[in-house]
């Protein structure tokens, strides 16, 4: 039986996509410090290479290169002939998280949940430990986001994919030009994620060389409350992490909030105050999040590496 660490304890700002057919990337991308790496068996793998990519991903998951790293694998959609084989290939190799694309309703998640249960039994994994990340890429997926997000205890996150969603909405997605067409979908999956207490990932930004546009979009989704974003190139990791890093001032204040809370608890005070203002539980929780984020971002109060 293989036990897995709960993904909720980890930072999850960045999810780096890697084509499951690319041997060089599967051999090297662990060094870039993405919070999650996602091996893709879906869009980036041609139909011709589905079989060999599955084998490559299976072997990669079992290899010492990826030992101890919780890897996400994007399988092909449920209604494709590849789904079952993909799932078996990755669960038999002990995958941590399965990203299911094209999710339109909660039934799909329950189906995946059941399949995972069967395969976990078959291959000796601890039942229920394989987590699910649902990607919604359609109007119905967005509308059903809450049901999807709460459909299984395996759910660790929900993600938006813009290309198909925009087409479904009779529009197009051009991140550099405008993001208003994604506004509703972003809000919808965010609400679903917060209701379900799971992570929420934004769309990819395809133009690797447009750092400015990328950062503009990152600023928008950070403000909205996203946990992170799907990435298509390692070069996007550092700018993303920097953008998500709290400022030294924010970190300092967070430490003071936590210290005040600890002090209040110690002396048995029910009410916590800092600088004459009341601090309630959500503020304390937010302060803990900021400190965690600062720790993974390398930010120190006394101005260290940024």
């Amino acid at each position: 039986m293989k036990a897995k660490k709960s993904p909720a304890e980890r930072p999850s700002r960045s999810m780096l996509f890697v084509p499951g057919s690319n041997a060089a990337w599967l051999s090297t991308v662990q060094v870039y410090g993405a919070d999650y790496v996602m091996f893709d068996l879906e869009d980036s793998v041609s139909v011709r290479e589905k079989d060999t990519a599955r084998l490559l991903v299976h072997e990669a998951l079992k290899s010492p290169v990826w030992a101890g790293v919780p890897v996400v694998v994007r399988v092909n959609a449920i209604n494709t002939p590849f789904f079952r084989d993909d799932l078996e290939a990755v669960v038999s190799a002990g995958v941590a998280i399965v990203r299911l694309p094209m999710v339109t309703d909660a039934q799909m998640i329950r189906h995946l949940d059941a399949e995972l249960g069967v395969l976990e039994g078959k291959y000796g994994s601890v039942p229920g430990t394989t987590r699910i990340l649902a990607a919604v890429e359609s109007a119905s997926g967005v509308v059903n986001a809450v049901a999807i997000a709460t459909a299984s205890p395996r759910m660790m996150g929900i993600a938006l994919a813009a290309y198909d969603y925009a087409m479904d909405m009779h529009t197009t997605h051009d991140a550099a030009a405008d993001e208003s067409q994604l506004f509703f979908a972003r809000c919808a999956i965010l609400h679903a994620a917060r209701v379900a207490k799971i992570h929420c990932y934004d769309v990819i930004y395809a133009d690797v060389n447009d750092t400015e546009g990328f950062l503009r979009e990152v600023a928008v989704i950070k403000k909205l409350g996203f946990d992170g974003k799907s990435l298509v190139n390692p070069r996007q990791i550092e700018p993303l992490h920097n953008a998500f890093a709290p400022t030294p001032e924010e970190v300092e204040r967070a430490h003071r909030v936590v210290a005040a809370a600890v002090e209040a608890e110690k002396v048995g005070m029910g009410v916590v105050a800092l600088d004459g203002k009341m601090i309630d539980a959500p503020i304390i929780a937010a302060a803990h999040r900021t400190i965690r984020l600062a720790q993974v971002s390398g930010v120190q109060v006394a101005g260290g590496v940024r």
Partner: protein
Amino acid sequence: MSGWQGRVPTDAVELAGLVPFAGPAPSTQADKDARRARKVVGSLTEAISRSGLGDGDTISFHHHFREGDLLILQVLAEVEALGIRGLTLASSSLNACHGDVVGYIERGVVSRIYTSGMRGTLAARISRGGLLPHPVQVHSHGGRAALMASGELRPKVAFLGVSACDEFGNANGTSGASRCGSLGYALVDAMFAETVVLVTEQVVAFPNTPAVIRQNRVDLIVVVERVGDPSRINVGATRTTTNPRDLLVARRATDVVEHGGFFVDGFSIQTGSGGAATAVTDYLGERMERRGVKAGWALGGITGSMVALHERGLVGRLLDVQSFDLVAASSLERNPGHTIVSASEYASPAAKAACVDELDVVILSALEIDLDYNVNVLTGSDGLMMGASGGHCDTAAGAKLVVVVAPLIRTRIPTIVERVTTLITPGSNVDVLVTDYGVCVNPRRPAVAERLAAAGIKVTTIEALFARALEICGRPRAVETTDEIVGVVRYRDGSVIDVVRAVAS
């Protein structure tokens, strides 16, 4: 009567041992052709003949054109046609473009080589043994100047390729068509060679100032169609890298420079060429602006990236022994703060002062680095020579913070090894290793480790990185060699620090 005869007493005791004036030498100044013919000869063959080059002599070259050098093979062809054999080929470095030297070795034209490094087929053939009658002497850039100063390496003829010079031999690398920029390595040859032959593409009007190679060191001048192809000085690597691994290593290396203890106003730095090194320079510019720190000077091979920092006012002076790209080459002309240093001034341990001794920070690379931080930049782990000693051990000896950057794994070949195949730079001169898998600090430098840790930089150990590499790659089999010594590695002071043995076939 010209009025000078009879003025000097022939028997004055006071003049004992002095030679009386015997009349002026016939003047060439009036005759333009005669003036020109003093040095300018019609062909390489004529230059070789007039130089008196004979069997067993030493000929020397510079490698400022790197992969674009066209001179060495031209000269060897002429030398062979003249029936001269058994030469020592002393180039400041040899590159992949010199594969045809193999034939000259086989035919007995070349029998000894002094160089900073080798690559391509020449390197592979020599590494397999049985080709060169005597092992290659591999020296550093500073070490070459020292070998010349000591007299061990004393070229009979230096053939120095320049894009243009005047008829007296005033030359620089910044005029004419094929500009290579600095002529820092060539300056040593011009200083020590018995006969200096400038091979130029063009003779321009006197005086071709500012001259780098000066007329008083030049014996002969020969015009050829091409001496080098400057577009191949930095083949493929002129633009900033987009390779994410290079960028990752560069960012970490920049963190180390920023927090390693020498990032203060007026500091000095050398970064080298290649994707990661160029990226370090770019990142460093951002950090300097953010922190309000300016560098006093930068040394070594100068790149366009470094020129950009200079022009933004972030680096005060550029001391250029070798221009790594055309931007650097042209900057020499327009930026008064960008000046040339000779290999001797740059790095020679025999010089009365060498710039490396004033250097604060150097970024270096490695083909292999062992658990004792010893570095190999000459041989691959398959035992074949494929790199160059360069200024590695010179700068490592001088600089106060020596940062080696390298990917931990190059297509399954771990960079960290138990024992380097060939020792170029002793580990006691290396402070920090930056890889894509993490940063580690030489245990001999606890202060550096503390500073990095205090800044929040995660520091691991070289043993941990080594273990990780083995876990991923498997353990590579040690290279099998024969007893034949094909290379002698000279440390910068001229001592022998290691030997390269032939790879068993």
